């Protein structure tokens, strides 16, 4: 996504994961765990990143009807971070404010996925065009 690239620079692509089934999500979690270990994140932050990814990845599966995830390592003036970009071509989010409310769910979950992952990560941005899909970008700094 162009805006994130301007804000945080081009990352070094670590992995590209398809997100079409629950099994893809398991693989994506394992990949993120591996890359976050490589980048030297603490156990706590590894768990936070993997959990946030699990939430956002499940959103891609359940609301976005499948999509993909880009994992990259970024470096902003010497500050290193792991960036995850989730993209889907689903129906998009009609009411962003509502979607970002704790406890609101359009399905039968707890309604904490988006807000929860925002709290677990350091940077969070979401863009959605109704009918065209949703892109969520999150960053955790080391």
């Amino acid at each position, binding site marked *: 996504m162009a805006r994130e690239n301007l804000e945080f620079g081009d990352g070094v692509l670590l992995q590209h994961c398809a997100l079409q089934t*629950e099994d893809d999500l398991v693989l994506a979690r394992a990949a993120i765990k591996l890359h976050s270990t490589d980048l030297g994140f603490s156990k706590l932050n590894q*768990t936070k990143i993997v959990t946030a990814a699990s*939430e956002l990845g499940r959103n891609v599966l359940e609301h976005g009807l499948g999509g993909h995830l880009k994992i990259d390592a970024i470096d902003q003036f010497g500050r290193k971070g792991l960036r995850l970009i989730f993209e889907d071509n689903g129906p998009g989010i009609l009411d962003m404010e509502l979607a970002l409310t704790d406890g609101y769910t359009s399905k039968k*979950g707890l309604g904490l996925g988006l*807000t929860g992952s925002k*709290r677990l990560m350091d940077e969070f941005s979401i863009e959605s065009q109704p009918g065209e899909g949703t892109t969520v970008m999150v960053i955790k700094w080391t």
Partner: protein
Amino acid sequence: MANDTMTSVATLMRDSQKEILADWVDQQLKDPARTQAVPESSLRASSNEFLSIFQEAIQKGNLDNMAAPEWEGARKMLSELSASRALQGSTPSETASFIFSLKEPLFALINKQLGAGNIASSEAIVRYSKVLDQLGLYTFESFQKSREAVIRRQQKDMLEMSTPVIKLWEGVVAVPLIGTLDSARTQIVMENLLQAIVDTNSKVAILDITGVPTVDTQTAQHLIKTVSATRLMGADCIVSGIRPQIAQTIVHLGIDIQDITTKALMSDAIREAMERTGWSVIRNTSQES
């Protein structure tokens, strides 16, 4: 190209089947990708069987559509062959080259019959090459399918194996959860646990999540549901094995688990369960070491 050339290849194949077979088996035996998974005798038998079926199929003249009924026999034989090879432990390339290695002996035969280097023989080679490519891909696909079937079966076995309910003490059962807690597993855990509560007349159930790598909102929701169902059965539920990083993650996510009794360690949970069921553990001081 005239179909009579095609059928003449079929006739030729029938007449020199022995020769082709010897050539073909030779090719397969000296293939560097060959493992010892398939013995030579069965290799020879299946090669011979395939040649007869193949020769019969091309006799009928349909060389374009491998999905046509003329090729049903060949398809059936190849899918059975790849299924048995997948189980025997052949490699995918070894299985696919069963068909691909037929090219050389067959083309040699065509060249011999139609004369090497002329238009008729190169056209025939292109056509038969396509046929064998399609059959090779079909074999590969069947191989893949049977591998996937094996994996699916193993997954199912694992699912059932990985959720045992253990009777810890009179009135206390425990489920050590290991791996990802998805909907399918939660369902199995819940069924097994609720049944065990009835069978053992337990009053306390311990769910241990030490082996669950990620607790996200879905996992938490599954846990909450399991606890609620246990309560409906008249038993208490304790969730143990909450690691420090999991505890912090749950707080950040904002999941409310105030209603659930949680313990850091399984041993804490056992102590609590014993207390609730009226047992007390006393260390015999004379044997203390």
